[in-house]
């Protein structure tokens, strides 16, 4: 009996409920992607290879504004910066001398949820487990996106309006539990809400594209909080674990 195969099957099993949730949320991503001019095939391909909710949403939105590739890359880096932190958390758990290949394979599977189940699993993170989960979940993410794009327009406006909230609900579910545990995160979230609202209204900042506003606010607010409320090393790792 190949042990790697058993771990792969375990990962696959754990990835199925994640994938079902992905399908529902990807449907709402697809509705947004259709508004920004993406076909079902294009949405399917981008979801299959990108599998990043917030990053893809922003990527689709930026495309509609005739952005440059440089702006897309910069924004993708900023918006997915949490994956770096998750990557650090997973690599911290791998012993010295772990082959680069293994580290790369585990890192390639990072999503908020797959990171969550991988870091929660006892022992050293292994690509067998993460790929099992990835192969179960990501095709459903891609399928959901394609369905949202192709069927979003045959659904009544009321249903579309309701589904469009799913993505934001998922964002809220990621940020609120750590905010409850950590007053500094709660403060950062409230300041972010306030600044984001103000940025839409204020004369100079509101002229920036949505993507640039997000970059500007993220860098400034995070840097200010990092200076005012620096983390201890252990806390920074704990925060990453909470981000699932």
């Amino acid at each position, binding site marked *: 009996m190949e042990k790697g195969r058993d771990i792969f099957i375990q990962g696959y099993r754990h990835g199925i409920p994640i994938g079902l949730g992905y399908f529902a949320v990807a449907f709402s991503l697809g509705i947004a992607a259709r508004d920004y001019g993406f076909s079902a095939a294009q949405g399917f391909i981008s979801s299959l290879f990108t599998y990043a909710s917030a990053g893809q949403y922003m990527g689709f939105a930026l495309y509609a504004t005739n952005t440059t590739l440089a702006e897309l890359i910069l924004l993708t880096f900023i918006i997915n910066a949490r994956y*770096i932190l998750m990557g650090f958390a997973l690599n911290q758990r791998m012993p010295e001398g772990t082959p680069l290949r293994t580290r790369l394979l585990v890192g*390639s599977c990072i999503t908020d949820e797959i990171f969550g189940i991988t870091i929660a699993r006892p022992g050293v993170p292994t690509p067998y487990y993460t790929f099992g989960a990835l192969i179960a979940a990501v095709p459903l993410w891609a399928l959901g996106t394609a369905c949202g794009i192709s069927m979003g327009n045959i659904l009544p406006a009321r249903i579309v309006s309701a589904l469009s*909230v799913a993505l*934001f*609900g998922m964002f*809220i579910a990621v940020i609120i539990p750590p905010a409850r545990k950590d007053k500094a995160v709660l403060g950062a979230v409230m300041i972010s809400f306030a600044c984001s609202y103000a940025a839409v209204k204020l004369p100079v900042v509101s002229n920036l594209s949505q993507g640039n506003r997000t970059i500007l606010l993220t860098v400034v607010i995070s840097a200010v909080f990092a200076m005012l409320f620096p983390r201890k090393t252990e806390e920074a790792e704990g925060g990453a674990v909470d981000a699932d």
Partner: protein
Amino acid sequence: MQINVYLYIFVMAFATWLMRVAASLIMKKPIQNRFFQSFLYYVPYVTLAVMTFPAIVEATQSPLAGAAALIVCIAAAWFGQGLFTVAILGCVTVLVLELFL
């Protein structure tokens, strides 16, 4: 001129992948710089918060329904509901409220 959509998708996927493997590529031992760690710690929460509000209020047909969904989602997440329960509660809130609004 609009960028070729498939090139755009490739760049988006590749840039996202780089973020996933960045730590794997550079990490030999834990990073000690406290400011860098702290900055990265806040980034996900700030980004997602900025993207959520006021966008959630503008996404729905009735802004009032979007605002209600925001409050319901925050409350549900605060009291320990999972990712997909929170998302679905938000959808149901909008669905029900827009029957009346």
